[in-house]
């Protein structure tokens, strides 16, 4: 079977990219798999991709990249114009241009493949509109149903019924999409992100380190994590917080950490290509998100034997974490509760070791081979 993944930028880093590349790698054992990246800004992908997966890009953003004749001038002109095909409320709207519109439309109307998997709302809608009729279109939704703004939601309502299936990360999302799509015959499946196989470092629970990871953007709630951690260090001054990730609120967070006098306890680590190695050096993973579509780092932390303390925010954490068994869920938006949860995990060393062992068991349910089997079942059902 030929399977094509269409992704915004396979060369960057982040949960969606990693999940897509790992899934493509796993499926490439038995299928002909390609990853089509709308944009390319680096020579090689940052995250690992199996050698049997073909990777190509549509719009080359690298310095000095030239579009071939006879499109050169047209590309230059259209690259300056905003996208007309992608809804301005698509979160990645700023990346798209009139040139990417043209290239995407051409690609989709020509693409010969058995299954096309698209990975975000803007691309899902384009697949529904322009993919060839014989191609089975599957849209992945990494976003929570209600997280879409009204304008793009209207487009979703209009176009998703033309898709063969929508794959959500959580069962809560599946219910929402079923309500919208059931009467059109569009299939809806829940398939979480999978965890790649391979040797994995395991935390010895010996370092007094709490780790958080994710882009430094408001939805991750790092402001609240810092405030909670300020309470933690009043009681346990030798515990450290390492925050991995980059993003637009980085300056604000550094200032807040300084204001909270966390300079001996908090480090902003930037991005890492080996988050598992860093997780295994820690003893607790903290999730302070206001919303978490799935929570891939929770699974990664589990696999490395690191229990999680998380806000019980919609939607992923509560479907992954069993509070008291492999982590702790604390009431969302409650800084005091997050601090209390972290302190409870810090002080109950036996409990933490037990949860760390349970967490490794939980992670097995998300093994990429299990996840890939579920995708293959969906393909078989849809391709018929």
């Amino acid at each position: 079977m030929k399977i094509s993944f269409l992704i915004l930028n396979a060369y960057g880093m982040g949960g969606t990219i990693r999940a897509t590349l790992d899934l493509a790698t796993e499926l490439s054992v038995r299928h002909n798999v390609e990853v089509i990246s709308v944009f390319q800004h680096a020579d090689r992908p940052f995250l690992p991709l199996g050698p049997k997966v073909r990777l190509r890009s549509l719009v080359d953003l690298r310095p000095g990249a030239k579009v071939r004749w006879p499109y050169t001038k047209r590309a230059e002109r259209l690259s300056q114009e905003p996208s007309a095909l992608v809804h301005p409320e698509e979160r990645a709207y700023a990346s798209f241009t009139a040139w990417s519109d043209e290239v995407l439309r051409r690609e989709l109307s020509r693409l010969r493949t058995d299954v096309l998997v698209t990975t975000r709302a803007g691309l899902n809608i384009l697949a529904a509109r322009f993919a060839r009729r014989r191609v089975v279109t599957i849209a992945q939704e990494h976003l929570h149903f209600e997280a879409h703004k009204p304008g793009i939601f209207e487009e979703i309502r209009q176009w998703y019924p033309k898709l063969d299936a929508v794959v959500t990360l959580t069962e809560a999302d599946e219910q929402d999409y079923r309500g919208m799509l059931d009467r059109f015959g569009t299939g809806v499946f829940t398939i979480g992100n999978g965890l790649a196989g391979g040797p994995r470092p395991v935390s010895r629970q010996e370092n007094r380190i709490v780790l958080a990871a994710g882009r430094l953007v408001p939805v991750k709630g790092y402001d609240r994590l810092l405030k909670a951690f300020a309470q933690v260090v009043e009681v346990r001054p030798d515990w450290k917080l390492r925050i991995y990730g980059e993003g637009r609120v980085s300056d604000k967070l550094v200032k807040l950490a300084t204001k909270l006098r966390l300079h001996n306890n908090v480090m902003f680590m930037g991005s890492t290509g080996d988050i598992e190695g860093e997780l295994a050096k820690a003893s607790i993973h903290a999730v302070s998100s206001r919303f978490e579509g799935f929570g891939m780092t929770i699974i990664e932390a589990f696999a490395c034997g690191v229990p999680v303390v998380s806000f019980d925010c919609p939607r992923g954490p509560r479907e992954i974490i069993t509070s008291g068994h492999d982590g702790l869920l604390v009431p969302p938006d409650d800084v005091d509760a997050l601090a209390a949860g972290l302190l409870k995990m810090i002080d109950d060393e036996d409990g933490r070791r037990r949860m760390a062992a349970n967490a490794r068991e939980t992670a097995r349910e998300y093994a990429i081979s299990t996840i890939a089997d579920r995708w293959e079942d969906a393909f078989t059902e849809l391709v018929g």
Partner: protein
Amino acid sequence: MASRETRYETVPTGVGRAVTSRVDDDDTLRIEWPEPDDGKILLRNTETGEEHEGIDLSGLAAGTWTVSKHGAPLVTDDPGFSLDGLVAYAGRARDREIRAVRSPEGILHVLVREVGPYVEVARVCPEDGMVGVEGMLAYGEPRPAARSAWLVAVARKGPETAGGGTVRGRRFTGKVPIAQLTEGQTKRRVFWDLFAEIDGVRLPLAARLDDVTEKKSRVRFPAQYVGQVRVRPYFTDADSLAVACTIEEKTS
């Protein structure tokens, strides 16, 4: 499993994985396996190609060494970092530091670095008109009885000054008043490198054991002011502790 091969092309399968890989206090490489395994351990220097057989690592030349067994790179589950373990290892005089670390691909590496005595910074306290430092004597002889010491600040191409401190066992504390650093400053920026002076010997103050490089961009200390001069400690490119004194432009 196939994904294992594709994802970690460099990692051979079928070779037993170490569950623990550490360098002990006596510079022995301690590797623990899920099952008994009697293969020979071979280290190879990644730059010179020099080989070393066995787990006694004393005298190993500086550099990065890959570890293999049965002719294949040794894969480990051990994250290769224990802050308490490294602080304990640094608890006596040594001229080289040997650490077992895990590469991002999961392979066991041994890092050998030449070291001299210094003070590993544990806390920096920029408050109450002082820059205070707490740390642990690393790779030097502990001083069992408490004695006084100095926190010395040396301006680059400039004067030096000092504040009081103490050392007891391995623990060093010291404070220098920031007014001593800013006094008579005319240049827009002056940088002071900090040292612990114990028994007349100046030891660098640095944070090197926590496995975090580039602390300059990762740690930010609060600023204090003496008039128009902003005083802010920072870690240098070499993760040593310094203080930047900057005359702030008047903003009307």
